[in-house]
């Protein structure tokens, strides 16, 4: 149950999040869109904090805002986006977008309605016993699940990601011959005897 100042913060985060989410779509400038997306992540992490999931809140900030959105912003900033071009396609794709939106909306409505139409009755969720709070932080709880209970699945997921990463590198990698490269080993090995040549120059004469 959220009371007092926590409730104030809940509504603050929730309202800003929804407004920012709308602005992600509505903003004319793609960089502004990404910045609003970052604001959405921020508020989502605030909501996680209010829910007591402090580990998830920090990971959300670190992974999505600190790494993914930076790269996203990086790409969007480098692209020269033609706004007129973007606007022209709008009319053609609007019906499909609207259809997808309607389907998602309908699904959400069914999900929320099913709470009342469930066979166990409207109070089913309330009467179920709440599990006793464990004397561990949720960092430890998540760690136990990921690294003890489901360690093999976790490692499998890691391997799949590693494969994807190697695949991406293999696709992008091509060695060109005849390109001059910096060899750090050779640079460090240089010493005054081989790098510097001292010449006596008589005055009035060049080398």
């Amino acid at each position: 149950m959220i009371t007092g100042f926590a409730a104030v913060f809940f509504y603050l985060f929730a309202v800003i999040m929804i407004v920012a989410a709308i602005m992600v779509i509505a903003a004319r400038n793609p960089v502004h869109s990404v910045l609003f997306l970052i604001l959405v992540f921020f508020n989502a992490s605030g909501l996680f904090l209010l829910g007591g999931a402090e580990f998830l809140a920090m990971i959300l900030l670190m992974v999505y805002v600190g790494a993914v959105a930076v790269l996203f912003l990086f790409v969007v900033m480098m692209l020269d986006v033609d706004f007129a071009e973007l606007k022209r396609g709008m009319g053609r794709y609007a019906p499909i977008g609207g259809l997808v939106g309607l389907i998602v909306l309908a699904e959400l409505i069914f999900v929320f309605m099913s709470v009342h139409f469930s066979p166990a009755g409207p109070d089913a969720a309330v009467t179920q016993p709440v599990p006793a709070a464990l004397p561990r932080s949720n960092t430890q709880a998540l760690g136990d699940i990921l690294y003890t209970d489901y360690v093999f699945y976790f490692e499998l997921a890691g391997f799949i990601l590693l494969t994807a990463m190697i695949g991406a590198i293999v696709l992008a990698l091509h060695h060109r011959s005849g390109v001059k490269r910096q060899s750090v080993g050779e640079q460090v090995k240089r010493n005054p005897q081989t790098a510097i040549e001292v010449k006596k120059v008589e005055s009035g004469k060049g080398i």
Partner: protein
Amino acid sequence: MYDFFLTSLLPVAIIAGKSLLLLAVLLILIAYLLYADRKIWAAVQLRRGPNIVGAFGLLQSFADFIKFAVKEPIIPAGANKGVFLLAPFVASFLALSAWAVVPVSEGWAVADINVGILYILAISSLEVYGVIMGGWASNSKYPLLGALRSAAQMISYEVSIGLVLTCVLLCVGSLNLTDIVLAQKNGLGTRLGVPFASFLDWHWLALFPVFIIFFISALAETNRPPFDLVEAESELIAGHMVEYSSTPYMLFFLGEYVAAVLMCALTTLLFLGGWLPPLDIAWLNWVPGIIWFIIKTCLVFFMFALVKAFVPRYRYDQLMRLGWKVFLPFSLAMVVIVAAVLKITGWA
């Protein structure tokens, strides 16, 4: 009504009071660390440094502050105005907000949260936004180049910082910063037979290679020289800050120094025993913990300042090579080694 005041408003007022006190102390400390930075740099180069305003130039930072605050802010015509003005606030607010979880003495943190170290890591990974937003919104070439460099640089060095923190966390077993400091009361020194808690117990000795990596990564993460490629004068003039003037410039500058001092404080907490005295004997224990904390933080900042004065700037490809090809594999190996040692000896 009174009840509401007692349960809801009072705690908030206390937190606000604590934050204001921390902010005031921090900003005054920063003013003098900035002065110290310039003095040390000058001393290395056999100059005098700031010596006009106040005795020995002690009021120089405040004079600079007044100068920045009363000058006219100039916004370039082609700039994206909103983002341009938002960027310096993002930079300085984020840097300041990270201090909320730093325990300067036992129990002296505004918020002693369970995931303190993750919070600091998250905030320091966000600091890049101030630079990127400023660089993009300036609508100019050098700032954009600076912003792109900083994005790549900060993401690269976060990886090694994260792995270094993992090593420390393996030894401690908690993400709470207070726990991390308290764990250093009983470390390598005690296990090797020193009869009382001493500076040999702190993590710097047990995790020495990791300590060095963290120090260098901290320099890179906060864009301090020799890794200040974001604002390399010889190449980019001032990087993301080229188009900034007066108060917005000052906020960028402030954010940079607050972030640097935060990294000093973090080094102190993780490796130098936080507020613990160097030897666990009576008259050293009488000194309040915050004094030890400030002394150690200033010592680390002194090292930062010396590095700035001594070491020439890295080339960009060297910086990337160091981050990805040297620090990343090394710190990854250290995680494995530390975990193996803890498992075999049962010290965890």
